């Protein structure tokens, strides 16, 4: 049961500031322009990055994207229905509840805007290892306590996922979740995870104190050399986005 490492690809070594700047620029342009064409272009630029990167885990990326998109779609569904709609706009109705053309248009527009944001953030998450994110946060003068908590929480989430998988296997090997005690067995799993996490936290505490921990997680990170064209590609992509967005705003 080896977890997948999503950061083993050629975008990993690109400077984190470049990736963060491109991500923020894309988000801002996507939200500011509101045009589907701009948002589609942004997605295409990110897609090119994904396709170019050797070792990028595209299958995992798109699976995660699908789940998140469906989640957003379900969350936006209530926006489809309205009560006071002009008759000429109604597409379908049940009693006093209507689905109108404008609500469908609004839903699709909003969903696509959210989808663009999710796409951008997922590309950033998949291309940027956590230690680069931590480094960026430190440079942005985020309080050390917050950064340290982020390090520990991320580490523990991963550990707990692995642990819960093992415990679940152990339960299923003993015919759990086959009868009418599923909720009780799930509760036992959660309790077990909670107890083990307490124990593991205690051991981690002992380990860091044994290495003279004084309240601050000081770490060095490896210096990696990005493929030469990678940084340039990000900058070019950013410039293209700006030019096209400005052009669109000018036309409008």
């Amino acid at each position, binding site marked *: 049961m*080896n*977890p997948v*490492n999503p950061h083993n690809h050629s975008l990993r070594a690109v400077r984190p500031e470049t990736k963060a700047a491109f991500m923020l620029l894309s988000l801002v342009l996507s939200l500011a322009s509101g045009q589907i064409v701009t948002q589609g272009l942004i997605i295409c630029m990110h897609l090119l990055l994904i396709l170019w990167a050797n070792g990028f885990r595209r299958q995992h990326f798109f699976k995660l994207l699908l789940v998140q998109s469906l989640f957003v779609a379900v969350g936006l569904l209530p926006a489809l229905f309205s009560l006071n709609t002009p008759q000429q706009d109604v597409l379908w109705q049940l009693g006093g509840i209507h689905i109108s053309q404008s609500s469908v248009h609004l839903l699709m527009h909003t969903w696509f805007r959210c989808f663009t944001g999710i796409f951008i953030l997922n590309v950033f998450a998949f291309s940027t*290892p*956590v*230690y680069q994110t*931590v480094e960026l946060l430190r440079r942005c003068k985020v309080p050390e306590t917050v950064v340290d908590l982020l*390090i*520990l929480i*991320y*580490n523990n989430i*991963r*550990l707990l996922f*692995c642990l819960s998988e093992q415990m679940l296997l152990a339960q299923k090997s003993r015919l759990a979740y086959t009868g009418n005690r599923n909720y009780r067995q799930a509760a036992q799993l959660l309790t077990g995870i909670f107890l083990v996490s307490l*124990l*593991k936290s205690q*051991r*981690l505490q*002992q*380990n*860091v*104190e*044994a*290495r*003279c*921990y*004084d309240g601050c*997680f*000081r*770490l*060095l*990170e*490896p210096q*990696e050399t990005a493929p030469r064209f990678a940084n340039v590609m990000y900058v070019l992509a950013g410039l293209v986005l700006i030019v096209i967005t400005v052009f669109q705003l000018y036309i409008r």
Partner: protein
Amino acid sequence: MNQPMIDIQGLSFRYPEGNEALHNIDLSIQQGERIAVLGSNGSGKSTLFLMLNGLLKPDSGCYCFDGKKINYKKADLTALRKRVAVVMQDPDSQFFAHTVYGELSFGPLNMGLSRNNAAQRVEEVSQRLNLANLLTRQPQLLSFGQKKRVLTGAFLSMKPDVLVLDEPFAGLDPQHATNFRELLDRLHNEGMTIIQSTHDTGYALEWADRVIILHEGKIMEAGHPTVILNNEAMLQSFGLNRPTVLDIYAGLPLHLQTYSAPRNVEELKQIISSI
């Protein structure tokens, strides 16, 4: 005799739940000694190790390191932990950095080394433990043997005087175990004091300068491996087995047991072949 590196007198410790983990422990360890601590599960080995770098404070007794009494103040403990490295058994509970490089640099940076010096230590340790190709990997995603190496390296980067290992070979395949043994031999040749707990009496016989048997929180026996580990009845009463080499040696006819007891298979072969 030189002043002992580690000098423990009358050490006792009881956990908050009530179980007395250590009772009246007296122990002296010289610099450069190789100590094997044997005992069944729950005998107090891990508790003793946590005492050695001040992670647990004894209820009674005195602990002196390199001639200086440990007062359990923060400065004392920091100074102690720079010189005594305790590597516990389970590597999965002990990583928090996102790269092996980060994990190896944590200790040196906490010791106050500059970033350049810490980076140099990381390079040295990674070369020594063959971790150079793992530096950018996440420690949690490594194989068990690799995790053990990274964990050991995380402490060796602090250049301790004493290395304490809690069952370092547990879960390792034969190749990794052999590599680890060779590492410990190299460290010992450089003057490091090494204390490890093990259930493998055969390895303790071959490797250790002195063997200590812990049982229910007390030191029951301590001495040369060939003497302590030759007493089968005593070992079994503490839940341990006599090493196979000594079992075979004990099975030789009495008139052939004139040689000093062998410590490994090679010595046993020499005894048998000289008959």
